[in-house]
């Protein structure tokens, strides 16, 4: 914000408005939050890359050309580096940039789908516990404690290895395991508002419990929900990468970023870029989502910043 004296959008000319409208205040907070802008931009770019991977990729993610294997990226000062493969090729001669682009699809899809599943489970449990309290709260707390005592990566690995690995197995296993933060946050958010006047008013009017939860409680905890959702999506992406890295997530020849690091592990001493590039991609994606989440929290509830 370089010039704060501009009257807020929506005001008629000639009006003397001392206080900016709530919309203008929100816009100002959004654009004043560097982390939010950076996170949203990077996420948007990655989303764009994933959506149009088939159009903007220079090659095919599965095409193996063994005569062109292990070409270094263009910033390496060797005659082998070529603009045909800007990020080089892997040990099977597949174009690394193309695999990176297609890998964005897998990360975003798994992260989003696992977040949806865990969000539904965690929000349901959390809101019920917060709204009803008492025995319901005790039961939810018990389920939550049990879930927390299970080591996530270990259980995920064991279950995936027993059922057999596929994209959907990974999504369901992660979704069923990482709902804990949703439940904790939604429970305390619901607790905070369940005794407020508008909820009491709805109860006095004789609204059904479902109606109160859906149309009085849910809209008021939505901002917390979005923040947890972003953090959990980032969490799911990291877990998928770790599972794939350990060989029990996404299976070859799919171009998952975690799997790309795993495949390059044996070559890291000679061709370090093979692990640096996909690792940096995971890092950038997770960082962007986290920045977005932190940004949304700061913008919607600035009083909670510290």
């Amino acid at each position: 914000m370089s010039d704060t004296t501009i009257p807020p959008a929506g005001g008629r000319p000639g009006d003397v408005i001392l206080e900016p409208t709530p919309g203008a205040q929100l816009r100002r907070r959004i654009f004043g939050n560097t982390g939010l802008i950076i996170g949203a931009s990077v996420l948007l770019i990655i989303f764009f890359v994933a959506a149009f991977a088939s159009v903007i990729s220079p090659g095919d993610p599965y095409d193996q050309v063994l005569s062109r294997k292990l070409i270094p990226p263009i910033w390496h000062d060797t005659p082998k580096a070529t603009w045909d493969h800007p990020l080089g090729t892997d040990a099977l001669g597949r174009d690394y940039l193309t695999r990176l682009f297609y890998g964005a699809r897998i990360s975003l899809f798994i992260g989003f789908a696992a977040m949806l599943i865990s969000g539904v489970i965690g929000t349901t449990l959390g809101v019920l516990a917060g709204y009803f309290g008492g025995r319901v709260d005790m039961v939810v707390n018990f389920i939550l404690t049990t879930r927390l005592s299970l080591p996530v990566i270990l259980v995920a690995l064991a279950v995936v290895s027993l059922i057999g690995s596929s994209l959907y197995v990974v999504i369901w296993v992660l979704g069923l395991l990482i709902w804990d933060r949703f439940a904790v946050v939604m429970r305390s958010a619901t607790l905070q508002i369940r005794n407020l006047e508008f909820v009491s008013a709805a109860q006095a009017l004789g609204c059904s419990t479902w109606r109160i939860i859906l149309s009085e409680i849910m809209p008021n905890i939505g901002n917390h929900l979005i923040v947890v959702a972003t953090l959990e999506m980032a969490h799911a992406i990291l877990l998928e990468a770790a599972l794939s890295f350990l060989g029990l997530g996404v299976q070859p020849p799919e171009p998952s970023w975690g799997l790309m690091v795993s495949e390059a592990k044996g070559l890291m001493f000679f061709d370090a870029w093979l692990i640096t590039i996909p690792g940096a991609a995971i890092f950038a994606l997770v960082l962007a989502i986290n920045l977005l989440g932190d940004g949304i929290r700061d913008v919607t509830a600035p009083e909670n910043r510290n």
Partner: protein
Amino acid sequence: MLSFALKRLGVAILVALTVSVITFSMIYLSGDPAMALAGEAATAEDIANIREFYGYNRPILIQYLDWLFRALQGDFGQSHYLKTDVASVIFERLPTTMLLGACAISFALILSIPLGVIAAIRPNSLIDRFALTIAVVGQAMPSFWFALTLMLWFGINWRLLPITGTASWLNFIMPSIALGYYVTPGVMRLTRAGMLEVLASDYIRTARAKGLRPLRVLFKHALRNAILPVVSLAAVQFGFMLGGSIVIETIFAINGLGFLAWESIQRADLPMMQAIVLVLSIFYILLTFLADMINAFLDPRIRVT
């Protein structure tokens, strides 16, 4: 205090029992365990023999109770792959993982508590920004990638540290950093938030007004109260870490429980997998119980709720 402790203990035991049911039911995830064990070339007779030998033909409840009572006596059965006693292998590997976990949590606390305190003393200063950056970056870094990157620079390019094994304490430096780094953001944020809250309170103002030395106020009065939630977070994180050590131990070839878990998963060694999941879960339950007790002991208000 006693009734609080008993209540918590009861919940802990119930949770442990539920976890044992979940762990036990893992063998039925892949369908018929006898068929999975026998392999593809097995005849119907082989499968029947295996079913008989391992007792898979009994009612499930009996199988579970049998497994549970044996586990309670420290008998987790025979490893399908190693053909040895599961419990002895686990207790052989456990100390390495505990040592790694202890090093990692020490590294995390040594890095994050001072940073959190300094960040809280000077909010929005350069150090605060630096601490925040570390926190944000740390939460986004995939642990396996961070470990490999450490290995690449310190092990290969600069040749400062050994990259695999457990031959000397030098071998534990990189794994501890890789494992512990992931915990630092949470601890740092909690320390910072706690210190900010405590430093703004009335009794700190009183202590300062009395003319106590600033450092004494900071450590004796403020940090002691702000550190409380950090203690329980550290306990919880230590439990998470033991589970997460599977990635780090696999990368650095450290012969601990995590590496054993990964090997057992590769070999489809079910009794071993079950035992490791159960041991780590119970350890986590114990840790949280202890953290609850310590907190209740230090802060009487908790005992009431």
